[in-house]
């Protein structure tokens, strides 16, 4: 198969770009621990309220300015609601759904995770900047999907 030199150069660059993306993605995921939310734990989706830790949802301080937020999602709200945390706090959200598929997004941050019934999802974020953050469900979940929101106040 004869190929022009230009085409060989182009394809080499193309291959290099794709490999570059792979290397950067891999470095971020495994060396910098910036991998996507991929928690493997499961739960009975019909017994969320009776299963720890979701039998007691809320904000818990687990270390020096480190928090855990145990949260359930159901059509069309978040429990707990309108939470407050101090600035600079490292917060791990532990999430599950009590009914259909929901999304957990905090606008203006990189928090974005699918919350599936039967699965426990986890995502961690350090809130450096004070402010009022908008939390929304970004996976269509029914007639009231557009009202499914809450806030996180960082002081």
């Amino acid at each position, binding site marked *: 198969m004869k190929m022009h030199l230009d085409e060989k150069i182009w394809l080499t660059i193309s291959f290099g770009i794709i490999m570059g993306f792979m290397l950067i993605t891999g470095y971020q995921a495994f060396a910098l621990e910036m991998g996507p939310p991929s928690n493997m734990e499961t739960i009975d989706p019909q017994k969320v309220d009776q299963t720890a830790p979701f039998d007691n949802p809320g904000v818990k301080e687990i270390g020096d300015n480190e928090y855990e937020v145990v949260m359930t999602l159901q059509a069309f709200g978040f429990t707990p609601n309108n939470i407050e945390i101090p600035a600079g706090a490292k917060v791990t959200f532990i999430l599950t759904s009590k009914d259909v598929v929901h999304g957990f997004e905090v606008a203006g941050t990189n928090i974005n995770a699918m919350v599936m019934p039967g699965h426990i999802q986890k995502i961690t974020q350090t809130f450096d900047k004070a402010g009022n953050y908008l939390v*929304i469900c970004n996976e269509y979940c029914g007639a009231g999907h557009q009202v499914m929101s809450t806030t996180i106040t960082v002081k």
Partner: protein
Amino acid sequence: MKMEADLKVGFKDKANKMLGYYPADAKLSKSYIAVAFIALLVGGFLGLLQGLNRAGLLELPTWFNYYQVLTAHGLILILVLTAFFTIGYFYATLSHNLGGLLPKVRKLAWVGFFVKLVGFVLAVIPILMNEASVMYTFYPPMAAHPIFYIGLALIVVGVWMCCIGAFIQVANWRKNHKGQHVPILSYFATGVFVLLFFALMFVAVEVLFMILPWVFGWVDTINVMVARTLFWAFGHTLVNIWYLTAVSAWYVVVPKIIGGKRWSDLLTRVVIIALVIMNITGGFHHQIIDPGINELVKFMHVFMSLAIGFPSLMTAFALFAVFERTSRRKGGKGLIGWWKKMPWGDVRFLAPFIAMLAFIPAGAGGIVQSTNQLNQVVHNTMWVVGHFHLTLGMSVVMTFFGISYWLVPYISNRVLTPQINRLGVIQTWIWTVGMICMSGAMHYVGLLGSPRRTSYTTYGDHATALGWDPYLLLLAVGGTLLIIGVILQVYAVFNMMFFAPKGETEFPIAEEEDNATKTPYWTERWGLWIVIMLIVVAMAYVIPLTEFIVNAPPGSPPFKTW
């Protein structure tokens, strides 16, 4: 007198056959294309309603709410428009390339046509009755009315019939033409139908063996992750089926229209093989931020998704090389001076050309959003909607529009008039400006966090959400331009189908270069490509599916949350 008339008919038939035109096959393609463009009209209007609602300009009535409109818009444009156009176009190709459709193949395609229509009507009724506001992705445990899924299953069966018809047609031709290469456009068709055939298996398993027993109440619960994964194994492949269909015109038809030759036959076939082999595994990049799949597996999936970019980058080179070569042959000079030699006033060139240009940002956006961290930023935001309106709405659909300006006259035994050509050029520019406004606004507002699939809301006048409004207005402006484009396009299609002057139109297929090297015969080994494809699919899917099934949580009962 009668004999004379018979002779005349016989002569006309023969002349038509020499041109590769078979009236019975043309009628089939015409029916498919007509349905495709009616779908465009209906789906387009539904899209306008959404755009206006999303900008806060229009409140939709409770009996036809945003989520009903959105479900119908997706179903009509993603399933009906694309499936009917693809089948109409490729069946015209198979007929033209391979000496007319076999009677049983034509029959199969007709039965498929009606099975799909019935399926579509069955799926739409529950949507209109607000019994199936589940989007075209219908993620369990949301459960629509059983009729909705039965309709979907019939659409699958109807498309399968057309796949099998195409396989019979190609196999028969190969049997009678031992040692010959399947003509290039039919080779594209083969690739597309192979992908359709296998991709539909995933969604068929999901609908027939998981969802239907569950919505009928024969089983209590469903495994939501398995269902979702099967859906995307189909869903993303469908995306690339449209893309491969559009690419077929870029490689084969556009060079002919500009008076040039095709790029390397071998490299073209290699691109098709690569797209067929690597496609299905791309589905996982829709699940990068899902629970239940570990990071190593997700990293492999990123690689599998990005790999699909490589044949597209090969395509990018090939197409621009053809443009440059052709223009220089016509006396084009300088680094960019040769651009002037391209037929900008010919809609059959202009529409697919802008479609190709759109694929540069569309493909680049696709590559970045397939990587882990950037996906996390844009997943389920309006960015994604912007992305697939740029890819499907521009790269693919504009190519379909460009094809329509010769395909519709060809199958209708009519000609493209200068007036309709001019209308087409105007339509192309309106569509381009409309899509740039709409898709641009969607991409940007998505980066700011505005979610997809959400009716107009300010989340209690939260400052962040209010900041999205100006972009959503631009989105509505784009959507309004697009509906003008839809009306012009549908008018052009039906004018060419029923009212344009009678005459013969050529099926434009470019030749190879005179000094082209002969393509080796291994490219015809479809059995091998399918085996490799299945191995790649197994590599991607066995680990996560086993994990979902072996470590499955208790399942979910059906919910109706709308």
